C-alpha cells in the first residue's frame, strides 16, 4: 500500500467552541445582543412614559389639516392641507436652497481658491480677505446681515423698475414668467395691484438672503479646500509640465486639477453637507424650510418628539443622499486621478 502523506492538522484542539474565530463571533454577538437589549428597554420605557404624560401620541397628526398658510413654494398648498403636505413643501424649499447653494458655492469656491494662488497681488489679497472675513464670522450673523440689507431696498410702492417687467423692492425680486393664456405661451409681467405685485414669479428676500449667505460663506471654505488640493500636488508635476512647454492654464486643467481632485473631494463633501444643515438657519429669517415648518407644527400640535424625529429623518435622508453621490463621484472621476497618481 502506498504511504499517503498525512494532511497537516490545525494546531488548535478539536473542541469547536475553542476555535478562535467562532469565539470572536460569539463574543461580538453577545455584546451586540446586550447593547441592543439595553437600547430596546430604554426605548420601550421612554415611549411608555411619554404616552402616560400625553407628550407623544403617535404620528397621526401628519394626516390632520395644518391650518396655517405658507408664503412660498413650488408645490400648491392651502391651510386646509395636511401637516405632511406642509412638511413636503418645507422639504422642497430646503432642497431648492441646498442644491442652488451647493452649485453657487462650488463655482465661487473654485474661483476663490484659484484666485488665492494667483501671482497678481491684488487678486490674491482680495481673495484672502474674503476668505478670512467669511470664515471668522458666524453664519447666522451673515444671514441676518444679508436679510437686513434687503430691508434697505425701496418700499414696494417705490420699487425699482429694472426694465422688461423686472422689479426690485424690499418684498423681493419680481420677474416675468411664462404662463398659458388662450392656448398660447405668454410672458406675464408682474403688475402692482392693491398691496403688492401680481403675476409673474418672485424671489423673496428671505430666499435671496439665505442663498447668498450660505453660498458666500461655504465658498470661502471650499476655496481653501481647492487651494489645499492644488498645493498638495507635487511641485515636480508643474515643473515637468512647464518643461514640456504646456501653458499655465493647460497645466492646471490637465496635470494639476486631475491629481488635486481626489484630495479635494472628501472635505468638499463635508462642506456640501454643511450647506444642507446650515440651511436650517432659515428659521431665523422666516424662510419656510423644514425646520421652520417643523417649529410651527410642534407649536401647534404640541407633539415635539414626533415632529423633531421627522425633521431629523428628513435631514438624515438629504445628507446621506449627498454623501452617497459624492462617494460615487469620488470612486468614479476622482478615482481615476488617484490611479494616475499611483501609477
Amino acid at each position: 500500500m502506498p504511504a499517503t502523506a498525512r494532511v497537516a492538522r490545525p494546531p488548535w484542539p478539536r473542541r469547536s467552541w475553542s476555535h478562535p474565530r467562532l469565539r470572536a463571533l460569539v463574543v461580538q454577538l453577545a455584546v451586540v445582543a446586550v447593547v441592543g437589549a439595553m437600547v430596546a428597554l430604554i426605548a420601550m420605557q421612554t415611549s411608555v412614559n411619554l404616552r402616560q404624560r400625553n407628550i407623544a401620541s403617535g404620528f397621526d397628526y401628519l394626516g390632520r389639516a395644518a391650518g396655517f398658510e405658507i408664503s412660498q413654494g413650488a408645490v400648491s398648498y392651502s391651510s386646509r392641507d395636511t401637516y405632511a403636505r406642509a412638511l413636503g413643501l418645507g422639504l422642497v424649499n430646503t432642497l431648492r436652497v441646498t442644491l442652488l447653494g451647493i452649485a453657487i458655492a462650488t463655482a465661487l469656491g473654485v474661483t476663490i481658491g484659484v484666485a488665492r494662488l494667483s501671482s497678481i497681488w491684488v487678486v490674491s489679497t482680495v481673495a484672502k480677505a474674503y476668505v478670512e472675513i467669511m470664515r471668522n464670522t458666524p453664519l447666522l450673523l451673515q444671514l441676518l446681515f444679508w436679510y437686513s440689507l434687503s430691508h434697505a431696498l425701496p418700499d414696494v410702492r417705490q420699487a425699482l423698475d429694472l426694465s422688461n417687467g423686472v422689479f426690485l423692492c424690499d418684498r423681493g425680486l419680481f420677474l416675468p414668467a411664462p404662463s398659458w393664456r388662450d392656448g398660447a405661451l405668454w410672458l406675464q409681467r408682474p403688475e402692482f395691484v392693491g398691496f403688492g405685485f401680481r403675476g409673474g414669479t418672485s424671489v423673496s428676500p428671505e430666499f435671496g438672503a439665505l442663498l447668498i449667505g450660505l453660498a458666500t460663506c461655504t465658498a470661502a471654505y471650499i476655496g481653501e479646500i481647492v487651494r489645499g488640493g492644488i498645493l498638495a500636488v507635487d511641485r515636480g508635476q508643474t515643473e515637468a509640465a512647464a518643461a514640456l512647454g504646456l501653458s499655465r492654464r493647460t497645466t492646471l486643467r490637465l496635470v494639476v486639477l486631475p491629481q488635486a481632485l481626489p484630495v479635494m473631494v472628501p472635505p468638499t463633501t463635508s462642506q456640501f453637507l454643511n450647506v444642507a444643515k446650515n440651511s436650517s438657519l432659515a428659521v431665523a429669517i422666516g424662510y419656510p424650510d423644514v425646520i421652520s415648518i417643523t417649529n410651527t407644527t410642534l407649536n401647534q400640535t404640541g407633539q415635539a418628539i414626533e415632529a423633531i424625529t421627522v425633521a431629523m429623518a428628513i435631514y438624515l435622508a438629504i445628507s446621506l443622499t449627498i454623501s452617497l453621490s459624492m462617494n460615487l463621484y469620488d470612486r468614479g472621476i476622482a478615482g481615476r486621478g488617484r490611479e494616475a497618481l499611483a501609477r
Partner: protein
Amino acid sequence: MTAYRSPVWCLALALSACSGGAATNQHAAPPPAQAQAARSTATPTLDGVRRKGFVQCGVTTGVAGFSAPDGQGQWRGMDVDVCRAIAAAVLGDATKVRFTPLTAAQRFTALQSGEIDVLSRITTITFQRDVQLGIEFPATNWYDGTGFMVRKALGVTSVKDLNGATICIQPGTTNELDVADYFRKHHLAFTPVVIERLEEGTGAYYAGRCDAFSQDRSTLAAARARGPNPDDHVILSDVISKAPYGPGVMPDDLRWMEIVRWSVYALIDAEELGLTSATIDQALASDDPDVQRFVGKAGGFGSMLGVDADWAFKIVKQVGNYAESFDRNLKPLGIERGINRLWKDGGVLYVPDLH
C-alpha cells in the same frame, strides 16, 4: 480559558438589573383600574411644592406686561402675579417662586414632564391643549383676541380691506391659525411672513416688509407703544378671534388645580369687594360677611382648600387685587382693560364668590 466570558455576563446581569427599575417621577399615572380612586386623593404637585418650599412657575422669555425681568432681574407681569398669588396662598409668601423662562416650543413638555408646577405663560386655552395634551386650565386671567396693526397711511379701516396684503405673523401661535381661517372664510388672500421672535417680527413690519402685523391685541398695543412713531400706526378695531389666557396645570393633582383656580378668582373677587393691598388690613375688622369669608375670619374655606385660613388675605396683601396687578403691569404699556373688567363694569370677569 473562560476568563473572557465573565466580564460579558457580569455586564449583562448588571444591565438587566438596572433597566428593570426605570425611573418614574411624581407624575407617573397609576394603573388604570385604580386611576379613579388615586386621582381624588393623590396630591403630588402640592406635596412637592410644600417639600421644596417654592412654586416652580413657567413663564415667557420676556413679554412686557405678562412676564419679563425688570432692570434688577426681578420678574414682573400679570402672569408672574398669578404665580405669586399661588405661592402666597400655599406657602404664605409671595416671594417663594422660581421662574423658568420657556419658549413656545418648550412650554407644554416642561409642564407635562413635571419640570414646572404651573404654566403661566400667556397660553391661549384651546380644545387641543385641553383635551389632546391633557393640560387643565382652571381659570382665565386675561381675555384677548387676534388683531392687526397697520400703517395709517394705507387707509385701511377693516380687516376685509387687507385682501392680498402681506402680513407678518409669528409661527406656532393661535394668531397664525386664526388669520388663515378668517381669510379663508371671507375668501380673501394674504401672504404670510413668519418670523419667530416678536422683536424681529415687529422690526420687519416697521421696515416695510409687511403691510400688517398680526398678534394678540394686548401684544400689539405694547409693540406699538414701544415702536417708532406710534401715531403712524393704528390697531384695527376688528378682533377676529377669542383668546382666553389662563394658567395651566397637570390633571393628576385636583387639589393643586383648585388652589390655582381660587388664587386667580381671589384676585378678581378682591377687586369686586373693593379690597386692595393698602386697605386689606382694615378689612380684617369688617362686618361685611363677604369680606369676613374672604379674609378668613369666617367660613373656614382655607382648611377646605388645604391651606391657611388667611390665604386670600395674604394674596391681596402681598400681590394686590386684579386691578392693582393690571395697573402695575399693563397700564404703563398703554393697554386698555377692554373686556377684562368686572361684569358689573361691563366686562367679562365674572367669577364665583367665596361662599
